[in-house]
């Protein structure tokens, strides 16, 4: 139950601090996100810049990049996911402990980007794992990554601890492991996990969506 903001301020003036469990719990979670130290291509360079002195992601509580998925709760997919690398990305995601979040950084991570029609590039990581925030750009500026991070913080902050929208780690029945694709004779098998990436809604014109007619 939320506290009336006015009442909270009034009580604050009296030296009484009132909060709710979910508020303080999410406040703690959103301000100590530990990203995984893991870069895939050119976007990773921008991610590194974001953490360095000029942009200083540490100001937002995401200071400790962890080289182990067991100690990280944010995966920043920074770069091109080749089909050779995709199973490892999904496996790393599976190895992260809940609660865990994913930022898909850059055109490649979203859709394959400039290499979309290549024989070796996955057309977006959200074919296999759920993504919380997408950042367009090639590469996105460090400011864009910080914006995505603040968007993620707002999302964490807004998560209720009970009810249907509660985070996966508070839901015993929630799906936590995602199938790791196999490297088959011609492509990854399966080419997409339909549970996280359903088919887009059919277009009314009967043409492929967005065709310029």
């Amino acid at each position, binding site marked *: 139950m939320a506290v009336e903001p006015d009442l909270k301020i009034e009580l604050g003036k009296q030296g009484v601090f009132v909060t709710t469990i979910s508020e303080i719990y999410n406040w703690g979670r959103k301000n100590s996100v530990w990203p995984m130290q893991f870069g895939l291509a050119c976007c990773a360079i921008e991610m590194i810049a974001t953490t360095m002195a000029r942009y200083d992601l540490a100001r937002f509580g995401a200071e400790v990049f962890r080289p182990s998925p067991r100690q990280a709760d944010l995966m920043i997919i920074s770069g091109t996911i080749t*089909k*050779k690398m995709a199973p490892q990305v999904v496996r790393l995601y599976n190895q992260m402990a809940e609660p865990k979040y994913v930022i898909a950084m850059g055109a490649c991570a979203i859709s394959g980007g400039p290499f979309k*029609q290549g*024989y*070796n590039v996955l*057309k977006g990581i959200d074919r296999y794992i759920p993504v919380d925030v997408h950042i367009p750009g090639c590469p996105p500026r460090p400011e864009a990554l910080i914006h995505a991070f603040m968007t993620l913080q707002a999302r964490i902050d807004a998560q209720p601890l009970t009810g249907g929208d509660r985070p996966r780690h508070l839901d015993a029945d929630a799906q936590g492991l995602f199938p790791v694709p196999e*490297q*088959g*004779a*011609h*492509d990854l098998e399966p*080419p*997409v996990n339909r549970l996280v990436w359903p*088919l*887009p809604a*059919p*277009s009314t014109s*009967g043409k*492929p*969506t*967005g*065709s*310029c007619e």
Partner: protein
Amino acid sequence: MKSAEEILAAIKTALPEAGVELVPNPSPSAQHSLRLDPAHALAVASFLRNDPELALDYCSNATGVDWPGKEITEKVKVTKVVDGVETIVEETVKRVQAGYLEAVYHLYSMKHAHREIAGPVVLRMRTVNRTDQVELPSLTPVWRSAEFQEREIFDLFGIVFTGHPDLRRILMWDGFEDHPMRRDYVDPDDFEYEPTPHDEVLKRAEQHKANTGVTA
């Protein structure tokens, strides 16, 4: 730096039976290349590297080319007896030229400090066909820098280099069966969601729709 013709003459003097041919390049760059007979390629390559005049000790690049088989239509003049008179008649002849795979090597000499501007010495080798006789001798024993690039050619074009120390796929995974840089490679049909399709992609997206009956 010596011209391709001079190098060819040097090879012919040193190794008369090597079967090296000049492949002329008719474009303004006139970057002619030398086509090696796979059976003698190693001997020629060693000669090119060890000969003190040439000293081509650095292989900067190795790559592949796919030449699919094609049907060639030609007009030929034949002499025929028409109504008892010999006349020259033009006839259209069709012939099928078999396809082959080609490996191309670019060589420089560190010793003679070749500049990029003079262009590399270009070697070519051709396989017999594109299907079952795709072996070529590896030149890695002569130029160590060819090792990974020959693996890449093996991976993407499917040329099998005999004598290569470690011939495995390098870019694609081991269980992968196709050779993506071949011209007849068909990539997997995942054109179900193309937000802005055009040209080739639009064709593939419509093809996908026809194949699966799923409108996207």
